[in-house]
């Protein structure tokens, strides 16, 4: 069974600094998708970034980028130039499609606090 592990329950970073959130996963599959979602205090789940496992190039979205290491089954999120609005829970997620079933498995989350 697939599992997703986020080993950092809480992190903090100074405004304008860079922070990296860790995520590892366990799967025997070769093709799958990985995601980072953000949940601010408003409770809304928002997609941050997406990575297809067959793509070697790391995904980037403005200040957000990932370090995808397929062999190591690692998918870390780097936030550059952190802003106060980045304060949120961050969830790493794994998705595998099989026989018409799309199942997303989420990690336990990392609570990030950006300090002024």
């Amino acid at each position, binding site marked *: 069974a697939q599992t997703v592990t986020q080993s950092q329950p809480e992190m903090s970073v100074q405004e304008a600094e860079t922070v990296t959130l860790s995520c590892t996963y366990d799967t025997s599959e070769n093709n799958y998708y990985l995601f980072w979602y953000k949940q601010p205090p408003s409770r809304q789940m928002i997609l941050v970034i997406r990575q297809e496992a067959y793509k070697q190039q790391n995904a980037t979205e403005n200040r957000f980028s990932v370090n995808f290491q397929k062999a190591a089954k690692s998918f870390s999120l780097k936030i550059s130039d952190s802003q106060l609005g980045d304060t949120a829970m961050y969830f790493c997620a794994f998705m595998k499609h099989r026989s018409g079933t799309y*199942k997303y498995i*989420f990690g336990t989350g990392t609570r990030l606090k950006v300090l002024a």
Partner: protein
Amino acid sequence: DTAVSQTPKYLVTQMGNDKSIKCEQNLGHDTMYWYKQDSKKFLKIMFSYNNKELIINETVPNRFSPKSPDKAHLNLHINSLELGDSAVYFCASSRTQSGQGANVLTFGAGSRLTVL
């Protein structure tokens, strides 16, 4: 023009009651989901429907019954509510075909259920 809308956002009720949460998406997505987020923020899949057909039914008590009248709606009915049902319930949808934006979960704002 909310993409995935859930009602109600907050629900407070007594043990033993029956309640429903409604979900609608206007994105034209073919798959809809219900997730439960507990007090520790852990997100767990409950159900998934693809084109109105149930495709994922995790280990959820049969007091929980999803209903999908059409592809744009997935409602959750809960019978005989228990204290442990208190949580935030998220509806989500995705487009499962290939291409830009495929397989990305779009979440509703969540429905906080409190059972007294």
